[in-house]
């Protein structure tokens, strides 16, 4: 593992002991199977304890884990060789922080859109840590229109710290790129399934997040601002990120309760990176299960339902009645 969490240290220590025992058993030809299985059990129990009681700040760490499966990892696992990547916004540049293309999930061909992070520093520099420039959102918009033209559903993988804040991004209209992506996505006449697989960072995530269904991995997060950013602003102390993380309620369970997402996809103990196939299978199952009924809907009805879904989000009250949702 390339990255260790503080809260995982007890597990990792035990895993190291387990591995030592195994070597010893093999090299010395000693039967340590009892000890080995005892430790293995202990590890599983500890994992279960730890990962079933992660606090929000720890979930954010898991969501950002360098080894966490990325869009391309899932695309490879689910679409295999059928994926064809399409590049470029036809205007200014290709943005490697956003992956677009077409691929096949089982028998269903779809457009695929997703933020792309790297698994190491070099890759992350190339992918700009998954933070798109305007051209990323303009590329995905173009490919979504292709999907609409060819009446193919759209599968979106969301995994970004946010849209990139930089001089070029502002010059080329980061705001407009995000806003138009949201607006046009809300009117795409084909079904859209979104999967928040890691970090759902603010407007840069929402820009491709207008789905007929929005799913979230168990340890993914989806937030209006990063815990660090929120802490710096409201607590005036970046070190209070842990408090901010708790306050922002950005975990999958919070969002399911809030009616923002449609379902949570469970992760293997220890996080998606411990077993990417397990998660990919869950995603594939959802796609196979949900797409056919959405594809059967008349486009006008699909759009009406999509509009109503996002129309209903928000909490306010009116003097005359007590409360609205």
């Amino acid at each position, binding site marked *: 593992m390339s990255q260790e969490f503080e809260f995982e240290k007890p597990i990792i220590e035990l895993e190291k002991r387990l591995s030592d025992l195994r070597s010893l058993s093999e090299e010395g030809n000693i039967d340590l199977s009892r000890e080995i299985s005892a430790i293995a059990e202990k590890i599983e129990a500890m994992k279960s304890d730890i990962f079933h009681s992660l606090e929000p700040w720890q979930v954010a760490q898991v969501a950002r884990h360098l080894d966490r499966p990325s869009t391309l990892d899932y695309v490879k696992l689910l679409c295999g060789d059928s994926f064809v990547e399409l590049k470029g916004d036809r205007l200014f540049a290709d943005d490697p922080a956003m992956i677009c293309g077409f691929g096949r999930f089982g028998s269903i061909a779809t457009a695929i859109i997703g933020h792309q992070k790297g698994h190491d520093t070099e890759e992350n520099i190339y992918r700009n840590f998954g933070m798109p420039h305007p051209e990323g959102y303009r590329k995905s918009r173009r490919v979504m229109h292709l999907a609409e033209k060819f009446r193919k559903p759209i599968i979106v993988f969301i995994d970004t710290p946010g849209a990139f804040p930089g001089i070029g991004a502002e010059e080329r209209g980061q705001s407009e790129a995000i806003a138009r992506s949201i*607006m046009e996505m809300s009117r795409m006449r084909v079904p859209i399934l979104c999967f928040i697989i890691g970090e759902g960072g603010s407007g840069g995530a929402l820009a491709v*997040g207008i789905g007929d269904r929005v799913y979230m991995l168990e340890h993914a997060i989806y937030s209006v601002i990063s815990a660090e950013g929120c802490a710096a602003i409201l607590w005036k102390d970046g070190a209070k990120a842990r408090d901010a993380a708790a306050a922002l309620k950005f975990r999958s369970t919070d969002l399911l309760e809030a009616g923002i997402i449609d379902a949570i996809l469970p992760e293997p103990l220890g996080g998606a990176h411990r077993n990417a196939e397990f998660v990919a299978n869950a995603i594939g199952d959802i796609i196979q299960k949900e797409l056919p009924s959405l594809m059967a809907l008349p486009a006008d009805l699909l759009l009406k339902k999509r509009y109503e879904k996002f129309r209903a989000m928000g909490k306010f009250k009116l003097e005359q009645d007590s409360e609205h949702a």
Partner: protein
Amino acid sequence: MSWFSRLTGSKKPDIPSDLWKKCPNCGEVLINKDLPRNLFLCSKCDHHLRMPIWDRIALLTDDNSFVEFDSDMESQDPLNFIDSAAYPDRIKKAVESTDSFEAVTVGEARLEGREIMLGVMNFDFMGGSMGSVVGEKLTRLMERAIERRMPTVIVSASGGARMQEGIYSLMQMAKTSQAVALLNEAGLPYVSLLTDPTTGGVSASFAMLGDVHIAEPEALIGFAGPRVIEQTIRQKLPEGFQRSDFLLSHGHIDMVIHRRQLKPTLSKLFSLLL
């Protein structure tokens, strides 16, 4: 992305007394009671100071024609959010100091005789941040515009999303942007009037989706706040960065218009587009 970073990132005028304030551009001492008459323009350098919403409404509409909608809509505290203060207390303070229930005031009015739907954001109310109420009021405004087949004008002034409402706040970008799509399908004009400052989730949703974008001079308009950008790229930002003329030359707004010309310009535009 957030309203507060803008608050701290913007030029702060010297502490104003009750009677006067200094022009943030030239330092001229401006007498508070003269400001409304001068449309909150600096009498020396013509700098466009932030304009209170009722003065803004008076500027853009025919006398006594404004009828407010949803004035009683109030925020909830869906996250039970507490930082150094509890969210309900922050709202209470904002309501008391601004005399508004929320960061946007919406209604119908006449503009040189023509009926329009008008929304005006209030930066003084928690940095004009967009929570559920702002999103809901603006969405209702646009839906009413479609029902009544009227043009829409929205005056933005916002630091972005309202963090205290968490994900609900983010979703207001979706709600308002998809409402603009319906305006487009109905063939109804929507003019976005961008005032100082318009950033974050507001600029990245309805504010950048107008048929026509008009900015006041020297307004700060952008996605990320200047401070966030400086911290990210670790370099000084160029002079004029994210100000109205910068956006004009980069193709994001149609015109930069002096406050005195806003009403006639809007009137002329609607006479051409309707």
